[in-house]
């Protein structure tokens, strides 16, 4: 009857030599080292700092970054006429936006009104050196979404045109 008890005690209590000869592939950090007894424990602070750093980096890349389109708010037809009385007026293109069958149309580019996508392509197809001197005056009906104005503004800014919203 005492035979099984002896076997189990052999399995549960290995000799101290066997413990120290056990292979250790990686060196483990030991919290019981003598140096850890003194000074503050920096581990939590380092953890928190790293987590916040990673969070900021991730949120900066995921969240949409913002920037700004410069827009003029002229009182007169030509913004240049406000500041300089004698200079030649800057060439101005007027774009009138309106909705037709829930599609944003633009009047002022060509004889017939065109969709805003066509007008955006036309603006982007202009010669940059010519377009740079122009002012694009944007006027829109009440029901036109603000996004369409920004779309047109963006295309004009790409060609380094000045934009005035009226």
């Amino acid at each position: 009857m005492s035979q099984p008890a002896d076997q189990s005690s052999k399995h549960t209590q290995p000799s101290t030599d066997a413990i120290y000869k056990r292979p250790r592939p990686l060196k483990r950090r030991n919290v019981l080292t003598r140096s850890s007894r003194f000074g503050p424990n920096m581990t939590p602070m380092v953890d928190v700092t790293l987590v916040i750093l990673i969070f900021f980096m991730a949120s900066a890349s995921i969240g949409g970054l913002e920037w700004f389109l410069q827009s003029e708010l002229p009182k007169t037809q030509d913004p240049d006429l406000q500041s300089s009385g004698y200079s030649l007026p800057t060439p101005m293109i007027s774009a009138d936006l309106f909705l037709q069958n829930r599609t944003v149309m633009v009047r002022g580019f060509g004889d017939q009104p065109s969709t805003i996508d066509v007008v955006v392509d036309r603006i982007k197809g202009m010669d940059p050196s010519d377009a740079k001197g122009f002012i694009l005056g944007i006027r829109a009906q009440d029901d036109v979404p603000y996004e369409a104005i920004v779309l047109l503004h963006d295309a004009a800014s790409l060609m380094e045109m000045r934009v005035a919203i009226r």
Partner: protein
Amino acid sequence: MRSRSIISNEGAGARINVTPMIDVVMVLIVFYLLVGQLAVDRKAQIDLPASATGIEQTQEHDPIIVGITVDGQVSINGNHIDNARFAGEIKGMHTRSPRTPIQVRADRDAAFGVVRPIMHQIRDAGISRAQLATEQQP
């Protein structure tokens, strides 16, 4: 008070120290709460339109931020304001600091009929330029 110690003679080597994890979790919770609340207050739930061009914000002056939501609610620097009081408020701010830039943060789905009166009031306050806030197109 009894101080916590990571050094314990009673089998401390076999335990996992959870103090850093608790610290991190608590900090994250507080951080999310604060940032979420601040973001909601400041941006007033405005979906900005996207643009492929734009200029970065200059840090010379803190701008006057005019927010316009999709349903036409107007705010100045995150504080809601009646449309009737807007013109006087923006004129006063511009008079006090004429070099402060104006940023217009209007919702992409807002009708231009909502945005135009605000822009005209900004213009009538003597401001000839405004910065339209957009999201950078990827």
